[in-house]
Each structure stands twice: as structure tokens, then as C-alpha cells.
């Protein structure tokens, strides 16, 4: 018997038992959801949203601690857990029981305005659904991804398909034949499934099989009611429909994106709904930008860095992305260093396409403590010896410092990468870095004197 994995609401219940969710019982205006999520020290569960009979939860992945708690993983092991799970994939399983289809609305009953669709940021082009796992069939393979959906009408949203991705390729193929592409959008699913969908899986690999590997149990799927695409069987809410074969023609955005800045107004395809299915008492998941989204990529990035360092023969201890770099562009690693190992580690990390800045420290430095990291960078670095700069590397349009507006159409941006070797320099005896230790610090605690 294959073990069942917890659902979204099982996870919420666990987090609440652990005191990791703040429940707001008073009625709130949906206008204020975004502000209240970002101002709360914990993820927020809004019991009552005026005009809607659906509670909302937001801020579940806002920082490393919240993401780790939602996943049920130790904070320091995001990368290693992801790597282990992703290498032990379990294919999803089609099931008969589908709480996600307890209520089925089709035709004129499809009405997105029944959902508390939040406006997240001041310049956003409208309210957005940001936590949907979008699925489409690619032959026998099931493709899953996270795509933002901008509210347009009761049965239409925009969808951002500007960036090259599997769904875009599928859409282009259908567009060439002037056929609509059927998709499903599962909202309110286990964090592992959101994280896996956000991961750009290698060709031929199913994101939901990775999710199964991370769970240690298959993701339960059920066939959509109006489209031949599966949905996550115990999702809170599901949207079904088609990407219309109209191409990149309709306005979408701007949108406050994962890097903390606004993306431009874009021309994008339209998602036309054929059904909304849901539980009888669904919870709407609000994925708050930027950090809820940025942290979703952290585990995969840390796994990628870990693997790159291992491949380079580096004895790696810990790896961490930094939040300010959208959990992607800046990486810190601690290593057990051999002579020259700091520079080797930097080259391995900076060879990855997304990494722009890398910092390497010795294993005595806690990379999750910014003060310790800064201490190492201050006292173990001579900039003329320990900072390497690589010009003309592959960059990203989303980084304004690459001046993307100066590029010709179709021209890819380039960036300069920087690595800082903050390990103890060769030739300096480690004894010079002996830290002070306070007297009797292992023997007494203030708790004994309350």
C-alpha cells in the first residue's frame, strides 16, 4: 500500500497546530489582503473576506523558515532534500476520489468573481491568481508549471507565456494548428507540488513525478471534468479551460515579479475557462509576491549548486541562496577547504547560468547567520586576491543592471559575475581566527534565573 501524502489543508492544519499560522477572524475587505499578508510576522489565514464565502491563506513561503515549515523539511536541508527527492521520482496516480470536484460549475455558472482574487501590488494590471499549478498534456507526458493568471472577465484570464518554457512550446504547436490548448489550474495544493511545478524539470521529466519523489508518495490526480487534462485530486479549487489560439495579442501585466520589481505590460495569450471545480468549503491560496514566489526556487537552486560543487570535487558542507537575490542570483557555500579550494568552488558555482554572485566560506562559518558571513568577508578577504570577476557571462533580462533596453530585439543580455573567496587565505595560520569564547557559557543559562 502506497502511503498517502498530506493535502494543502492537512498542511495548513499542521502549521496551525505548530503555531505557525495567524488566524484573522474579523471580516476583511479583499482590497487589504495583500497588505495584511506582507505586514504579518506569520502566514495569515483570513477566515472571512467580505463578499466571498471562501477563506484565504497567504504568505506561506515568505522566508526560508516559512517555506521549510510548509514543506516539513529542516531549514538547512532545502537543497539536499530536493536533490534526494528529485532523484527518486514517483509517477502520479489516477484516483477515483476527487474532493477538488465536490462542486462543479460549467457554462454560464463559471464565475471567477466568486473567488477572492487579490490585487497584490500598486502597478499590477489587475487582480491575479498566483498560486496555480498549471497542467497540460505533452503527448503521454504531463507538463506542470506555475504561471500567473490576470483576471479579465468571469471566465477569462491572461497568462504570462513570454518566457521560453514547455507550456509555451506546447501552445506554439497548438497555435500553429489553430487549436486551443486544454489546461487545468489547481489552486491550493501541497507546497511540494507548487515547488515542483515551479522547477524547470529536464526534458522528458514530469514535475509531478518529482513531487511524488519529494513526498515519497504519488501525487493523486483525477481527470478534468471538461478537458482531457488531469487535475490534482485534492486541490482546493480547480480551473479548467483552454488557451485560445489567438497568440500573443492581449494586454497582460504589469506585475510585481519575483525579483521585487515590476515586469512590463506584455502581450500574452488568453485562458478561457470551461469549468471551475472546488471543494465544498475551499480555501484560496494567495501566493504573495515577491518572496513567496522567490523562495519556491530556493531548494532547486541550492540542489543545483550542491551538485555543481560535488562534481567539481569540492567538499561542500552547506549551501544557501540569499533572499535579496530573489533566492537565485546570489549563493553562499561553506566548504572544507583544500589549498585553492575556495577559488575552485567559486568557479563551479559561477558556471551555473543563474548565479551572479558567489561567496565561499569555511565550515566554521554559519552561512545562515548574516553577521558571521560578513565577519568572514571582512576578515578573510583581500579584494585584490580573493575577488574574481568574470565579464561577458550569460545574463537575465529581469536584471536592470544589464541595461536590457539597450539590446537589439532578440539579443541576449550579458552580465559580469563576481565571486568572493572568504575562506582563510592560504599562508595565514587558522589560529589568527580563533574566536573569543565567553567564560562558563556552556554551563549557565538565563532561563535558570527567571
Amino acid at each position, binding site marked *: 500500500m502506497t502511503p498517502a501524502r498530506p493535502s494543502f489543508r492537512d498542511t495548513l492544519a499542521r502549521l496551525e497546530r505548530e503555531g505557525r499560522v495567524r488566524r484573522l477572524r474579523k471580516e476583511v*475587505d*479583499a*482590497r487589504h489582503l495583500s497588505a495584511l499578508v506582507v505586514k504579518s510576522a506569520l502566514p495569515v489565514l483570513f477566515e472571512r473576506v*467580505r*463578499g*466571498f464565502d471562501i477563506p484565504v491563506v497567504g504568505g506561506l513561503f515568505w522566508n526560508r523558515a516559512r517555506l521549510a515549515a510548509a514543506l516539513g523539511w529542516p531549514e538547512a536541508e532545502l537543497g539536499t532534500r530536493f536533490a534526494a527527492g528529485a532523484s527518486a521520482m514517483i509517477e502520479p496516480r489516477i484516483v477515483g476520489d476527487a474532493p477538488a470536484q465536490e462542486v462543479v460549475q460549467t457554462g454560464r455558472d463559471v464565475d*471567477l*468573481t*466568486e473567488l*477572492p*482574487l487579490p*490585487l497584490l*501590488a*500598486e*502597478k*499590477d*494590471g*489587475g*487582480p491575479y491568481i498566483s498560486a496555480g499549478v498549471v497542467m497540460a498534456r505533452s503527448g503521454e507526458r504531463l507538463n506542470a508549471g506555475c504561471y500567473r493568471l490576470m*483576471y*479579465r*472577465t*468571469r471566465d*477569462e484570464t491572461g497568462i504570462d507565456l513570454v518566457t521560453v518554457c514547455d507550456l509555451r512550446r506546447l501552445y506554439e504547436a497548438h497555435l500553429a494548428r489553430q487549436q486551443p490548448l486544454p489546461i487545468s489550474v489547481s489552486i491550493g495544493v501541497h507546497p511540494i507540488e507548487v515547488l515542483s511545478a515551479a522547477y524547470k524539470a529536464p526534458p522528458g521529466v514530469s514535475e509531478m513525478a518529482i513531487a511524488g519523489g519529494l513526498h515519497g508518495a504519488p501525487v493523486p490526480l483525477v481527470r478534468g471534468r471538461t478537458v482531457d487534462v488531469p487535475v490534482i485530486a485534492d486541490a482546493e479549487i480547480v480551473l479548467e479551460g483552454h488557451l485560445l489560439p489567438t497568440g500573443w495579442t492581449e*494586454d497582460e*501585466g*504589469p506585475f510585481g515579479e519575483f525579483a521585487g520589481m515590476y515586469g*512590463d*505590460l506584455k502581450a500574452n495569450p488568453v485562458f478561457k475557462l470551461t469549468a471551475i471545480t472546488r471543494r465544498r468549503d475551499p480555501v484560496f491560496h494567495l501566493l504573495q509576491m515577491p518572496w513567496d514566489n522567490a523562495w519556491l526556487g530556493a531548494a532547486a537552486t541550492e540542489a543545483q549548486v550542491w551538485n555543481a560543487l560535488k562534481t567539481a570535487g569540492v567538499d561542500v558542507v552547506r549551501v544557501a541562496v540569499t533572499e535579496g537575490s530573489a533566492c537565485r542570483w546570489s549563493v553562499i557555500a561553506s566548504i572544507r577547504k583544500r589549498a585553492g579550494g575556495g577559488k575552485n568552488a567559486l568557479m563551479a558555482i559561477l558556471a551555473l547560468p543563474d548565479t551572479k554572485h558567489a561567496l565561499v566560506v569555511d565550515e566554521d562559518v554559519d552561512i545562515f547567520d548574516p553577521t558571521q558571513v560578513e565577519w568572514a568577508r571582512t576578515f578573510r578577504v583581500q579584494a585584490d586576491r580573493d575577488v574574481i570577476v568574470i565579464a561577458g557571462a550569460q545574463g537575465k533580462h529581469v536584471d536592470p543592471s544589464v541595461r536590457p533596453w539597450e539590446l537589439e530585439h532578440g539579443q541576449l543580455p550579458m552580465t559580469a559575475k563576481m565571486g568572493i573567496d572568504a575562506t582563510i587565505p592560504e599562508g595565514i595560520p587558522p589560529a589568527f581566527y580563533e574566536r573569543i569564547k565567553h567564560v562558563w557559557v556552556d554551563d549557565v543559562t538565563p532561563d535558570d534565573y527567571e
Partner: protein
Amino acid sequence: MSVEGVAERMTALLHEQPQTFYELLRQLDDVEYRTILQSWGLLRERKVLARDEHGRYLVRST
């Protein structure tokens, strides 16, 4: 306030000057959020909305 009435108010506000969705919302504090969604959907269905170069909404010139 009716969905149609709010749609008319939105149209009038967008006639005055281009606005973001948020700026529009700030001027419709007295309207229930769901009605905002419904009225906005109505304007979309009627294809009366356009954008300026900053992504702000305006009413399409006929």
C-alpha cells in the same frame, strides 16, 4: 450599487485620465470588491479598455 453603475463610474474615471487598476480602486472605496470584479469584467467583455505606454488603463477611442 449595480454592476452596470460601477462600470459607468469606471468608464468616467478612465475618461478623465489613464489610471492603474489600483488608482481606480482607490476612487471606488464605497464599492464592494466583488462588484468591482464584476464591473471590470463587463468593461473587458465590451472591449472598451486600452493601455498607455506605462500600462495604465484608458478608454479605447471609438
